[in-house]
């Protein structure tokens, strides 16, 4: 990104971000004598942020370390991780000004500013630091090392929510005014307020939970619901089930991890745009239990429709073919569904078998015929399950050969019994 850029701490598309941007604008205007009266530095671009020492490769993406990033955020978790660490901030001015120039790099604590009306930026205790001052601008890349404890204000429990600015100032020889750029790092060390959890309703291997939040601005926060089989504290959330990014004050929790007749402890936290989590809400306990939907009520009431368009099940329903049905289902799942061709075959069967199933459903004679016709298929399924596909194929081939041999003998026998002599060729 080059030329008179604005590095905002706001999130694109976020209403909170918009409000923050407006707040930032107001702040910038208020300190206009230092921040906005200077013209922008031509050909300036932000080059990225790298961690130093223990923070090398350990900076959170929220900080916006890439040269393409335009927002830079530090939250409470980051603050605790970054305390005592340093970052290197890099900028590019390319091409360099035609006239010899000096530059300075300074940064201010959250809510503080540096006076950048001259190239001789003045440091102020606990407010403004100047790591690079009045240096000759002889390279297109300029860098500065910044102590994060200073940039973040030094106290991660400060409950502040302010931008911390990084300034780049240049001045051409002989010029009376300076040029400047400002990089804003949004330091959000303020937790949202915990929501007030309300009622949790149990369902069948699921539950729903509601809460209220009269303190946080609904546009500023999302919510995360945590639940576990034992109660938990905020220090143990890594191992607790959760549903995050809930943009409402109620949600349904549906997970394969939820079982019926097990009590679950449920708590909710609010999460702001900087990903700061509130304290945990109070706990509610909910115990999912089996419920009976319409289809279960229908089945329990003796409804005969088997559903699922199954021709075989329709043919076999009410007969002694239940074992064969199980065999065919095992054949479907264990053999056919293991190959592309088999899956296609099953798909075709379910696509078209429904018509046949509906047609024979109330015709006992046809159902009996269907059962007889299904017997070879059941044998094939049993053989495949017992011998494997190749074994079943070999067995099938042997049966075919035996049948062909028997058929030849049978035809020869019939021929021998006929009174007519069969001749071939000749006149």
């Amino acid at each position, binding site marked *: 990104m080059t030329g008179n850029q604005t590095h905002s701490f706001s999130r694109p598309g976020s209403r909170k971000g918009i409000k923050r941007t407006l707040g930032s604008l107001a702040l910038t205007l208020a300190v206009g004598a230092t921040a906005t009266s200077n013209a922008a530095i031509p050909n300036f671009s932000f080059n990225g942020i790298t961690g130093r020492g223990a923070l090398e490769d350990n900076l959170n993406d929220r900080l916006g370390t890439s040269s393409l990033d335009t927002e830079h955020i530090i939250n409470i978790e980051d603050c605790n991780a970054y305390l005592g660490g340093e970052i290197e901030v890099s900028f590019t001015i390319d091409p360099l000004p035609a006239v010899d120039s000096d530059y300075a790099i300074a940064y201010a604590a959250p809510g503080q500013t540096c006076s950048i009306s001259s190239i001789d930026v003045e440091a102020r205790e606990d407010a403004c630091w100047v790591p690079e001052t009045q240096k000759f601008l002889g390279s297109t890349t300029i860098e500065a090392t910044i102590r994060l404890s200073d940039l973040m204000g030094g106290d991660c429990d400060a409950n502040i929510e302010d931008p911390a600015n990084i300034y780049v100032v240049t001045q051409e020889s002989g010029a009376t005014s300076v040029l400047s750029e400002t990089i804003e790092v949004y330091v959000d060390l303020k937790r949202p307020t915990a929501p007030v959890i309300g009622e949790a*309703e*149990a*369902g*069948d*291997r*699921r539950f*729903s939970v509601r809460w209220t939040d009269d303190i946080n601005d609904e546009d500023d926060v999302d919510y995360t619901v945590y639940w576990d089989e034992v109660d938990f504290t905020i220090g143990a959330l890594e191992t607790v089930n959760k549903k995050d990014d809930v943009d409402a004050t109620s949600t349904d929790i*549906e997970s394969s991890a939820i079982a019926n007749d097990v009590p679950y402890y449920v708590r909710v936290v609010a999460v702001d745009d900087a990903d700061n989590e509130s304290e945990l809400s109070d706990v509610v306990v909910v115990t999912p*239990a*089996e*419920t*009976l*939907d*319409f*289809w*279960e*009520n*229908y*089945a*329990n*009431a*003796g*409804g*005969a*429709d*088997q*559903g*699922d*368009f199954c021709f075989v099940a*329709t043919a076999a*329903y*009410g007969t002694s073919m*239940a074992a064969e*049905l*199980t065999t065919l*289902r095992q054949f479907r799942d264990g053999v056919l569904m293991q190959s592309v061709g088999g899956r296609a075959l099953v798909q075709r069967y379910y696509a078209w078998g*429904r018509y046949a199933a*509906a047609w024979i*459903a*109330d015709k006992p004679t046809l159902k009996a015929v269907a059962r007889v016709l299904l017997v070879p298929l059941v044998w094939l399924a049993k053989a495949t399950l017992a011998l494997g596909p190749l074994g079943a194929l070999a067995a099938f081939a042997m049966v075919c050969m035996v049948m062909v041999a028997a058929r030849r003998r049978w035809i020869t026998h019939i021929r021998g019994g006929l009174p007519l002599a069969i001749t071939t060729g000749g006149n």
Partner: protein
Amino acid sequence: MSVDHTTRWNLLTTRGVAIASALCAVCALSSSALAESPRSMMLEVHVGQHTPAIDESTPGTPYADTFGNDAMWLIGMNLDYQVWRDHGSLAVGGGLGYGWVDGFALNGDGSQSADEAGFNILPLSVNVTYRWDWAALRHNVPLVPYAKVGLTWALWWATDGKGDVAVVADEDGNARTGRGGTLGWQAGVGLQFLLDAVSPGMAREFDNDVGVNNSYIFAEFLYRGLDDFGSDSSLDLSAGSLSFGLMFEF
């Protein structure tokens, strides 16, 4: 006859003449809408309610247990082609609908739970429809009675508290998935009101702009015999239902 009665009689007579005049005016105006483009197709959209006879063909009352007295809402559309026109019209066509009802699953003690449960149908049909529109088109009587008969196949599925297709295990432990299809027939009668009679000018513009000759609103009673033609082992979705809709003839 007292003065009051005389006054009332005169009032009624005046109103009657006014209504008759208005009807004549409507008929006269609608007659001007008869100079129109050829027509052969009919498109209708309709909405109604449908209470399937599941509980009548099942030992228990699973439908009422889950959905109470709620009927299914059923919306749909039909497209027909007029194969014969003389004293009325005979059309063949097909239709697609969607019906749904939502209720709550039951707890083990039979009380209503917080889990929502649903049942949906998607009826597909082919119809033959006879419409007696001779009087409407020749004599400006804006009413068209009609009758239809056809075959229908309804796909259906039940949903559980998670919104997934419901599954229940049978006595052998095998899954019975709550979806299927039921074949059947349908027959019904209805009455259409020719909207062109209300606004002939607009009707003419509608014809000139998009080729729609006539527009109708209608009420229809349709009986669907959806039980795989009497099968005892099929979900019985049969029901008679009253629906209302809008029909365009083009």
